């Protein structure tokens, strides 16, 4: 696979009379961009706001976060298979990206964000705002201060704040939201067509040096099929497919072109910007061969099913000639067991694994870091357990169509790794935070 990635850095985003990229500044004609989005009957209101690094700003209610990317002179489209986009194989030719920025869809749905003010959801927790939707209180990005932990604190974030009509089911809602973010992404990325990218990086993974060991990146992504059915637009998708399927084999450049997308529980940005993928690709031909990505789906119900899925991933890796696998997970709890099945299967066929994962709350030394730690789990990289300190108060909150609950401006309490509680959600090791034994 050979992909030429051209980066157009975005140092600032401003509203203006037209939409264009010029020397690091992305100018936007907001009315022109919002027109087609507002034309969608299920969207009641939509507006654009900008959150910049270093500001005392908190962005809440995010549904998806993605980076504008576009194929150059190709029939294929980035983020293939989603919302009716062609599912042609991506990952070769040329792609342009707007680096240093993201688009965030912020969904202000009063039926979902019903709770106002501070309330306690779980008995042993502290009061938190935005209690309507489970885990909603974890989904925010601080653009400055000690709580600016996410990679989006360093990007210029164009926030599409919208309010959909009431009563949409998960699948329909996801479809509408994804269509909105993708059409906006295309329009912004289109401004680079015909221009020369200031930075170009070539990813050529075609040749393999037989003297170097082969590595696969093995990501496990939860599927919501049990709840929403096999053909729903809701959840993490590969070429638009969300169903609970056997593992997929992808070339790394396919991921760079957006073959894996998310929205709702997860966001798309960490897939196109996956630091493990990029790190392995950059060492290809030097210290290792990056053979590809094996994407497992999780939420299998029976142990035998998890074992089978793990075995298939290991067999694919073995056939590809792997000696090593870096394994990741995206939701803990029972899906952790799926990842473990894969690790055990890899080790059984002689493939050395490293598991990158968050860990659970240690409960002052009383609880182990993992639900389950089998003997095969020999190499583990921990991306920590969240944030123990509060998040400072802010001057501005983005994410409400007509203002937000004042509670969001105030200091927010800690969010740490009790199962499911996740603000940092560093599944791919983008940060340096970790835990260590005392």
């Amino acid at each position, binding site marked *: 696979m050979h992909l030429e990635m051209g980066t157009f850095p975005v140092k600032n985003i401003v509203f203006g009379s037209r939409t264009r990229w010029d020397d690091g500044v992305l100018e936007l004609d907001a009315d022109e961009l919002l027109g087609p989005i507002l034309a969608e009957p299920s969207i009641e209101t939509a507006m654009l706001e900008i959150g910049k690094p270093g500001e005392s700003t908190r962005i809440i209610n995010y549904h998806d976060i993605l980076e504008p990317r576009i194929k150059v002179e190709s029939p294929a489209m980035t983020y293939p298979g989603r919302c009716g986009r062609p599912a042609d194989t991506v990952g070769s030719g040329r792609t342009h990206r707007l680096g240093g920025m993201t688009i965030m869809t912020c969904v202000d749905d009063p039926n979902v964000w019903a709770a106002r003010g501070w309330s306690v959801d779980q008995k042993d927790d502290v009061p938190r705002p935005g209690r309507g939707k489970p885990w909603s209180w974890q989904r925010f990005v601080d653009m400055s201060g000690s709580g600016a932990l996410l990679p989006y604190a360093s990007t210029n974030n164009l926030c599409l704040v919208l309010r959909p009509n009431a009563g949409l089911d998960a699948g329909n809602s996801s479809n509408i939201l994804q269509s909105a973010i993708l059409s906006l992404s295309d329009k912004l990325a289109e401004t680079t067509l015909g221009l020369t990218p200031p930075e170009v990086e070539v990813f050529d993974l075609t040749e393999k040096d037989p003297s170097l060991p082969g590595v696969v990146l093995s990501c496990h992504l939860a599927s919501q099929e049990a709840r929403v059915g096999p053909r729903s637009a809701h959840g993490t998708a590969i070429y638009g497919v969300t169903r609970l399927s056997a593992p997929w084999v992808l070339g790394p450049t396919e991921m760079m072109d957006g073959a894996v997308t998310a929205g709702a529980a997860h966001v798309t940005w960490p897939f196109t910007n996956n630091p493990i993928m990029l790190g392995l690709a950059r060492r290809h031909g030097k210290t290792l061969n990056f053979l590809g990505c094996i994407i497992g789906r999780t939420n299998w*119900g029976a*142990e035998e*099913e998890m074992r089978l899925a793990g075995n298939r991933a290991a067999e694919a890796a073995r056939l590809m000639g792997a000696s090593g696998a870096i394994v990741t997970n995206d939701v803990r709890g*029972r899906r952790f067991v799926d990842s473990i099945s894969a690790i055990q299967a890899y080790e059984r066929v002689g493939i050395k694994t490293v598991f990158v994962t968050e860990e659970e709350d240690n409960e002052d030394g009383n609880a182990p870091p993992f639900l*389950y730690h*089998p003997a095969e789990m020999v190499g583990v990289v921990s991306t920590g357990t969240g944030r123990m300190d509060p998040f400072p108060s802010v001057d501005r909150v983005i994410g409400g169509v007509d203002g937000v609950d004042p509670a969001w401006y105030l200091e927010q309490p800690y969010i740490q790794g009790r199962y499911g509680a996740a603000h940092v959600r560093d599944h791919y090791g983008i940060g340096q935070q970790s835990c260590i034994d005392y």
Partner: protein
Amino acid sequence: MIPLSVGAHRVVQGISVEHVCGEPELSVERDHDLMMRITQAALTALVTKVDAPTLFEPSDEPMKEAVHAS
């Protein structure tokens, strides 16, 4: 997997997270029979001496006899 590693001594293998003691894909009659076999495996576990975490699997064939302790 998890109960054994946590140290539970007598563990019976269920079918699936979404339906531990049965299988909705079966006919009602066969499903009820499966639930009975799973429950009987639990009784077998209760009367078996164990020293370490042990997995008990439900029998494959419908049990003709009831489980007796002695």
